[in-house]
C-alpha cells in the first residue's frame, strides 16, 4: 500500500487571508494527500509542535502580510532544534523576489508566489519529500 504524504498547512502570524491556503489544502486532498489544517494565527512554536506530533512529511506556510522574513525562518530554526529537519518546508504568499534567497538559505525549500498553480506546488512536494 502506498502511504499518503502528510502535509501540515499553517498560517503563521496574524494574516487572515486563507483563500490560497484552503484552495491548496483541497487540491492536496484531491491529489491523495492527508492535509492537517491548523488554521489562522499560529505561532512558529505551535506549527512545529503540531508538525512533530502529526509526523508530517511537509509543512506548507502561507503568509500575505509581509511578516514572512520573521516567521518562516523561525519555523525552520525550531525544526532544527527538534531534530526534525527531515520535514520539507515550503512557503507561499506575497513574497518579494529579493527575499527568496534568504528564506531558502534559512531552510525553506521553495517559495510559491501568486500565480503558482496548485499542480506545481503538489508536484514539487511529491518530488522533494525527504522520506
Amino acid at each position, binding site marked *: 500500500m502506498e502511504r499518503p504524504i502528510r502535509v501540515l498547512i499553517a498560517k503563521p502570524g*496574524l494574516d487572515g487571508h486563507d*483563500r490560497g491556503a484552503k484552495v491548496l489544502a483541497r487540491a492536496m486532498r484531491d491529489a491523495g494527500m492527508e492535509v492537517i489544517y491548523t488554521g*489562522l494565527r499560529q*505561532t512558529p512554536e505551535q506549527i512545529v509542535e503540531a508538525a512533530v506530533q502529526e509526523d508530517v512529511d511537509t509543512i506548507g506556510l502561507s503568509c500575505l*502580510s509581509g*511578516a514572512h522574513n520573521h516567521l518562516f525562518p523561525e519555523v525552520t530554526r525550531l525544526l532544527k532544534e527538534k531534530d526534525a529537519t527531515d520535514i520539507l518546508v515550503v512557503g507561499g504568499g506575497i513574497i518579494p*523576489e529579493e527575499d527568496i534567497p534568504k528564506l531558502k538559505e534559512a531552510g525553506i525549500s521553495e517559495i510559491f508566489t501568486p500565480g503558482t*498553480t496548485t499542480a506545481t506546488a503538489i508536484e514539487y512536494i511529491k518530488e522533494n519529500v525527504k522520506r
Partner: protein
Amino acid sequence: MTTDLKQVGGAKKAWEEGPVAKAVARFPERKEEFLTLSGTPVDRLYTPLDTADFDYEQDLGFPGQYPFTRGIQPTMYRGRLWTMRQYAGFGTAEESNERYKYLLDQGQTGLSIAFDLPTQIGYDSSHPLAHGEVGKVGVAIDSLADMEVLFSGIPLDKVSTSMTINAPAAILLAMYIVLAEKQGVPSDKLAGTIQNDILKEYVARGTYIFPPKPSMRLITDIFEYCSDKVPKWNTISISGYHIREAGCTAVQEVAFTLADGIAYVEAAVEAGLDVDDFAPRLSFFFNAQMDLLEEVAKFRAARRLWARIMKNRFGAKNPRSLKLRFHTQTAGCALTAQQPDNNIIRVTLQALAAALGGTQSLHTNSRDEALSLPTQDSVTIALRTQQIIAHESGVASTIDPLAGSYVIEAMTNRIEDEAMDYIKTIDEFGGAVSAIEQGFIQREIQESAYAYQQAVESGERIVVGVNKFQVADEQAPELLKVKPEVEARQKAKLENLRQQRDNAKVQSTLQQLSKTAQGDDNLMPGIIEAVRTYATLGEICDALRQVFGEYEPSVIF
C-alpha cells in the same frame, strides 16, 4: 415606438438558424460555452426578449429615486465626482502621515487608513503575537498618542476619513473623536467611515476578536452613539469586498453582503433602535472585478435589492434609509505578480466598471500589490487612472450610461434574483450569524474559489501573463520596504507612554469599562474615557476579552 416581441422572437430565430448557423458551421465559435468571471453562461446576443417582463418605472426609475437602480443621487457625477480614496498606511504614524499629506496634495479627496494586523486584532505592538507584523500591512496604532501623530497637520473638519478597522472599530472611532476634540472640532462635524463589519471577518478576512454576540452589541452601540453624537459618520461599511477576494462569485458577493446587512439591521432593531435613525448611515463596500459587464450589473442589482429589502422587509420610511451607498476597491486578487505593469490595465477596466456602476468612492489598486506594499510611483499611477476616467473618458457626463442595454438589464435582473434566493436560504439558517456559525457561507465561498482555481489551471480561463502570454526572465520592479526598525521604534514609544501617563487613571477607566461590558449600557462613553487616559488599544481589548471571550472560527472544507 413600440417593439413587437413576437416579431423580434421570430426574427431572432431566423437569424440563428440562418446566418449564425452558417457562420458557426464554417468557423466554430472560440468556445462551446462563454461564461462570466463568476461562471454564469453568457448568450451570444441579448435582445428585447431578455427584458420582456421589465417595467421601467418599477425596475429602474430615475436617479435618486426608488429603487435606485440608476444611482442614489439625482445628478450623480454631474454634480460631484466619486471620492477618490486611496487606502494607505504603513510603518509608524509619522511615515503614514507623510503619505497622507502627499496624497492630499495630489488631489485625493478623502483619507483611507490601513492599520497593521496587531492593531486590527487588538494587540499592542509589544504583544508576542505582534512580532514581525508591526507596521507591515498598515500603520501601527497603540494609543491616542499615535493617532495624534497620524493626523498631525490634517484638520479633521476638512477631510473625510475612512478607517479599515473592524473588531476594535469602537476604539479607533473613540480615538478619532477625542483627537477631534483636541483640535477643537466638535464630533457632529466629523465625516468618515469605520468598516466595523465583523461578520465578513468571520467568513473572509480573519481579523476577528470577540464572539458574534458581543461583537454585534459593539456594533449596535456604535450605531446608537453616532446617531446622536456623530451624525455624519458612516457607522459601518458592510463589505462584500473581502468576501469576493476570498473567491466567491458576483451573485454571492451581493447576497452575502446584503445578508450581513440584514443581520446588522435586525440586531439594531432588536436593540431598540428605529430603523430610520441608523439606516441612513449604513454604507457598503464592494469589489470591482475583471468582468466589466457583470460588475456593472452587480452594482445596479445590489442597489435595487437593498432598496427593496429596506422598504419591504424593514418598513423603512426615510428615503435615505433605502439608498445603498458604496465604496469600491478594485480586485486585489486579480492582480498578477507576473508582468506587473499589466495590472495598470486591469485596474483601469475595474475602475471603469465601478464608475459605470455608480460608486460613491473608489480605491484603485497599484500595479505592484501582488508583490508587496505599493511604492509612491505606483500609487500615483493608480490615482491618475481614476482621474483619467473621471475627466477624460466621458463616462461621468451622463448618469448610468449602460442602462437599457439588453445584456446589462438581463444580468442585473439575474443577479438580483439569484442573490435573493441565497438570502432566502440564509434566512432558513436563521440569518447570517447562524449561517456563518454553521459554516454555510464559508463553504459556498470555498466551492467557488476552488472552481475558479481549477478553471485557471485547466486553461479554461485565461489570465494574461500567468497561464498564457508568459515571458521568461521577468525583471523585478523596485518595491517598497517597510523598515525593520519600525517595530523596535514603535515598542519604545509604547514603553515610554506607559511610563509617562497616569496609570492609576488608566486602570480605573478600564475597570469601569469592564463593568459596563458586563451590563447592557452603551460601551462607547466608557471606551472614550479609557482612550482619553491613553489606555492602549491592547489594554482596552483585553478588558473586553475578559468579559466577552474570544471567537473560535469554524473551519469548513
